[in-house]
């Protein structure tokens, strides 16, 4: 894979309810800022634009169509959309650049989850004939997974609480985080269970917001004269939709993607992992082959704020910005989709 430069990344605050602001109003500020950071006037100045969103969050067909209004797409632009987290929009753009059809791309993801009941909305991701009619929501499927982890002895409830305590602590330095603060594992373990074995704090919050990124070939980034991080590898894999056909305590799709993306080709300083539930961070850390010398989720991760359809791209952006700011040399970012970590994407980033 030809090296790709991640030049600019902007994320909105994670807020529980963006109120009267619509999707265009969530997207516009981050798109404006991400372009300003590169010195670009509009989406006309990049070769390709791609976004990620989900109609069901807005409760309307073609929710992404209005997103185009946030871009200033007059005259028309080369544009595409995935009904996935925007991390996969980045993937589509990477293919475009690899094939020589684009030198630069603008990516964005957005989600306004507050109008609906997100876990229940996502129950409709399941098999429509056998599972979706049961309204098995995403918290319940995660609880099944956590129970399998505890029963197998792979984790303890204390380890889950420690993940949360670290997330809250790390999030103190993240201005966009929704949940942050100093709290001990002991205090967390004193909380009642919500959907056993999960406590409320084991689950990511529901957030509204958006994020945007500008990428380019290394040659183009140099022309722009802006600092950048280099995307060295990116891969994603999916697993069966049937819980019964999977070992929920492992993430073979993450392992395969990590191998293909080249995670093990060097030391990993930081990792931003999309783990909406505390126990999943432990599964993913293992699947990514990360040791204790890697700093996990320095931003607090999605337990501190989860922008559906944008959090995956945000993980990549978080790592990129820390590399650009000189905080680390090599990092890995991860995105997930579906119930109980069904689909996973892994990206490896390095300094220029």
């Amino acid at each position, binding site marked *: *894979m030809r090296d790709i430069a991640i030049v600019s990344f902007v994320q909105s605050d994670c807020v529980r309810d963006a109120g009267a602001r*619509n999707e265009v109003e969530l997207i516009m500020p981050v798109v404006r800022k991400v372009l300003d950071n590169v010195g670009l006037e509009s989406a006309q100045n990049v070769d390709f*634009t791609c976004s990620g969103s*989900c*109609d*069901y969050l*807005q*409760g*309307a*067909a*073609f929710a*992404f*169509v209005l997103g*185009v*209004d946030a871009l200033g*797409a*007059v*005259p*028309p*632009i*080369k*544009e*595409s*959309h*995935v*009904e*996935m987290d925007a991390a*996969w929009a980045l*993937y*589509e753009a*990477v*293919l*475009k650049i*690899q*094939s*020589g*059809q684009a030198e630069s791309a603008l990516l964005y993801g957005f989600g306004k989850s507050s109008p609906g009941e997100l876990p229940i*909305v996502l129950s*409709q*991701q*399941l*098999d*429509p*004939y056998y599972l979706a009619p049961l309204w098995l929501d995403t918290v319940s499927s995660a609880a099944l997974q956590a129970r399998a982890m505890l029963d197998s002895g792979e984790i303890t409830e204390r380890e889950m609480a420690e993940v949360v305590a670290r997330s809250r602590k790390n999030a103190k330095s993240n201005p966009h985080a929704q949940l942050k603060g100093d709290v001990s594992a002991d205090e967390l373990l004193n909380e009642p269970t919500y959907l056993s074995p999960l406590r409320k704090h084991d689950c990511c919050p529901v957030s509204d917001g958006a994020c945007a990124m500008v990428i380019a070939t290394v040659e183009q980034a140099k022309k722009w004269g802006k600092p950048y991080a280099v995307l060295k590898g990116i*891969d*994603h*894999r*999916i*697993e*069966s*939709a*049937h819980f019964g*056909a999977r070992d929920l305590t492992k993430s*073979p*799709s993450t392992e*395969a993607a990590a191998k293909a993306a080249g995670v093990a080709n060097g030391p990993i300083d930081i990792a931003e992992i999309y783990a909406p539930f505390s126990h999943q961070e432990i599964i993913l850390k293992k699947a990514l082959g990360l040791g204790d010398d890697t700093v996990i989720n320095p931003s607090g991760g999605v337990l501190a704020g989860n922008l559906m359809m944008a959090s995956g791209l945000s993980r990549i952006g978080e790592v990129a910005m820390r590399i650009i700011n000189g905080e680390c040399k090599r990092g890995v970012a991860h995105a997930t*989709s*579906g*119930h109980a970590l069904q*689909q996973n994407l892994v990206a490896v980033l390095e300094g220029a």
Partner: protein
Amino acid sequence: MAELAAVVGIGQTKYQTKHKDVSIAGLVRDAAFKALQDAELTWDDIDAVIVGKAPDMFEGMVMPELYLTDALGCNGKPMLRVHTAGSVGGSTAIVAASYVQSGMFKRILTVTYEKQSESNAMWALSNAQPFSPHLNAGAGGFFAPIIREYMRRTQASPEAGIKVAVKDRLHGARNPLAHLQLPNITMKEVEESPMLWEPLRFLESCPSSDGACALVISNEELAKQSPKKPAWIRGTAMRSEPTMYAGREEVSPRAGIDCAKDVYAQAGVTNPRKDFDCAEVYVPFSWYEPMWLENLGFAEKGEGWKMTLEGATSLDDNGDIPWNCSGGVLSSNPIGASGMIRFAEAARQVRGDAGDHQVDGAKLALGHAYGGGAQFFAMWVVGSEKA
């Protein structure tokens, strides 16, 4: 520089009002399996799967590709889901082609579908939104005023729309997969069918269909080893513009003009009417044939309806540039797949594999799709030769 990519397998289900015989998974698997059979391949030969469909609300499932992974033999592989409104079938084929053109994949499977009978597309398109006018009219109601403006500007004979409705159904009668089978349709019958959205009559509108379409796309090396003739992808282009903006030209959108220019340049097309042997163009309502003839440069401005009436786009009239030989969207419309069917049918023509609707000796064909408020465009050019 992009790797060469070619279509080496095509699979389509029968298009019909209700596929009660299969689940959604069964429907997509049917098309995918047929594409593999066409290419004489198995699931193990596929490196990645790219799924496309129109809004999730059309079946009432959120991100259904997650559920379809088992049916598409994708476990352990990369899966991507494209959604770009009505153009999605075309966009998905273009994204799928980029997997191979990037050099990162050798051979991929792409599948698009709609199972409209699971829900109701018109109502799925019509739910009220805050701060927006409520449109209870579906797609026909949205496009009818734009068509009326085309007729006003060009002083087109009202017969042109009726002619397209007849012509595409006669084409569809040659295609056993087409949903509507109306071999005896007449101008009079179309004219007497109920008016739905002035000037669009019932028979000037597309049906609601269940169906799926799949393609196997491979790189040059594997395409050469393929048992059947490959359709070489000679150009791909996409364009988007907002639904509304001051001064927007809605009859002949700039995004369509720019997209065509881009894809023609890649394929070396300078005179589309002469250079192409046929075209599969997204015409869900009859009048969009003359409108797209002009938008895509096949006819001079204001002359598209005359070209249609003269029979230039008709196989049965021995037209010089047949459009929608498969019967087009007017004969089958599983929305999410409709764009890919255009792309696939263009490929069938240049492979010489289009059965009774084959254009003799077709060497170069255009596949076209559009969506949203005629604001998203996807096009590709396929050829029997690499260049």
